[in-house]
């Protein structure tokens, strides 16, 4: 008997189906080009540096590059999730599928896994193209450099899954796929760019509102604490902190708790991967909560929905 579990059947169908769409081919091409572009950026950055600083700064450059990738990942993931359910409802394909022996929860989980695998594939494509182009451009990729590249990947995957869950949430909330896609494009811009910029600007403006130069370190530290607290609703903030823990050995909470002086101390620290995870555990937990919460709402809504 070929007994394909329903969740995998849905997931595989979804991958198979999406691989044939122009949207995904364009997305993959963008990721491929991003990988190549970042390899070129790394090459030019290294060439500008004095030889002795190259190895030391390699991981710093990599950290900056990966932070830039998060915008791509956020948009791709939320877009992939945004029409996962509503397009099936709009087209009526869900009626045919759910008339076969499958539970509703298996359907939504299958859709989520299918799309998650597609995001992973895109990210893998980016990673492979990046390493390949580094080699083509004549930059040797040592095992240490490769490990530098690999270490933050699980958290980028987690970050992608958070945005994918946001997308699936939108697809159960908004009946029209086009509306969900429009909101999906705006959501990462709002969450990752407009909101953090606005929060930082307002708090800094209030802290130095008198026009006097910011001499009170304690007040500045307090403002920074407020910014970080308000940014705790932003997935990218947590990813940046995990990245910081891996590449520089500190997180935002360390700065708030330890003061600016600790920044210098942390920067010189070379922490192990496990130590970095220990440092960033709150941010990892926050990302997990951010993944589960919208998915749980989407799941509950879908389970009770009338699929007309």
């Amino acid at each position: 008997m070929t007994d394909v579990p329903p969740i995998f059947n849905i997931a595989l169908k979804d991958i198979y189906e999406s691989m044939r769409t122009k949207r995904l081919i364009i997305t993959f091409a963008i990721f491929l080009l991003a990988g190549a572009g970042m390899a070129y950026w790394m090459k030019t950055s290294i060439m500008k540096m004095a030889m002795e600083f190259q190895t030391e700064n390699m991981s710093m450059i990599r950290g900056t590059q990966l932070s830039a990738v998060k915008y791509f990942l956020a948009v791709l993931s939320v877009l992939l999730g945004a029409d996962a359910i509503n397009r099936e409802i709009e087209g009526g394909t869900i009626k045919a599928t759910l008339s076969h022996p499958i539970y509703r929860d298996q359907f939504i989980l299958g859709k989520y896994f299918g799309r998650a695998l597609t995001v992973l594939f895109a990210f893998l494509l980016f990673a492979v193209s990046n390493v390949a182009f580094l080699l083509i451009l004549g930059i040797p990729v040592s095992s240490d450099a490769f490990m530098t590249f690999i270490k933050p990947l699980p958290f980028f995957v987690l970050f992608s899954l958070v945005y994918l869950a946001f997308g699936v949430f939108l697809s159960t909330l908004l009946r029209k796929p086009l509306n969900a896609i429009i909101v999906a494009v705006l959501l990462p811009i709002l969450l990752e760019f407009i909101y953090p910029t606005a929060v930082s600007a307002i708090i800094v403006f209030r802290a130095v509102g008198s026009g006097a130069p910011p001499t009170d370190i304690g007040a500045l530290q307090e403002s920074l604490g407020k910014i970080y607290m308000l940014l705790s609703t932003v997935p990218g903030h947590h990813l940046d902190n995990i990245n910081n823990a891996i590449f520089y050995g500190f997180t935002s909470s360390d700065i708030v708790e330890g003061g600016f002086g600790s920044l210098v101390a942390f920067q010189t620290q070379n922490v192990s991967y496990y130590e970095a995870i220990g440092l960033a555990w709150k941010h990892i937990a926050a990302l997990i909560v951010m993944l589960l919460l919208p998915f749980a709402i989407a799941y509950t809504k879908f389970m009770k929905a009338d699929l007309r």
Partner: protein
Amino acid sequence: MYAIEIENLTKSYGNFKAVDNLTLKVEKGITFGFLGPNGAGKTTTILSMIGLIIPDSGSIRILGEDVFREPVKVKERIGYLPENATIYEELTAWRNLEFFANFYKMSRQEKEKRIEELLKMVGLWDVRYRKVKTFSKGMKQRLLLAQTLINDPEVLILDEPTSGLDPEGAYLVKNIVREERKKGKTVFFSSHILSEVEELSNRVGIIVKGKLRALGPLEDIKREFMELEGYEIKVETKQKLPQIELPEIIRIEKVNENKAIIFAKEDIREQLSELLAKKGATIVSLKVEEPSLEDVFLRTIYRRSD
């Protein structure tokens, strides 16, 4: 044992009651035609049977299993053809059926054999490796029909099965329904094409404003209709039609000197022939005109709806 048992099913959308305390039982092995005007509650009833709509109250059992408590058990034994639906357009016809077949416990060989059988049956074998998005509406509908039959279901639930089909496609659907009936399968189908319902079904249910207004074998419904609405008797005599007076007669419409249509409260053919014989008229024909399903349907909608 009943194939389908719907009890006190109620479903509202806001203030609108789409289905109002509907109770309906369909025996095994019959073809049941579910009739009703647009917005009467046909599709809501059918979607509730598949578990796609969660009713406010009531229960639905198919082949003895509760649709909401044991959805997978039920769905293993039914086939459903949705109305105005489509199939995965980026996949080929073969891949679509393979996807649906994967939900059932079948060996690869069984799956391939069944898919081949169905694609040949619906006339899509030659285009099996073409993407569905290149298909015409009729071809898509035929592929949808094929997915309905993938598990060789005991109960077929078809929502407007010939809607949007060309005559050839409609003929194919009707043939499949007949074949399934011959195999002893239960077919529950909704339609607004009355001739189709009359042709295919041996039991009919008419739903109006969410309530079941008529239920039973077509002949019984027609008889009941005639008892309620009156009999239409056509009479023709060799000679000029004499004066006819009987207490059961409602009115007489003269067609010409020899022919007339008599509307009566009951079947008065016997009394009529006696009366005409007494008056020396030779009867050429005397028959009760059976109402068409269209008459029954329209009267049910417009006269009995509150």
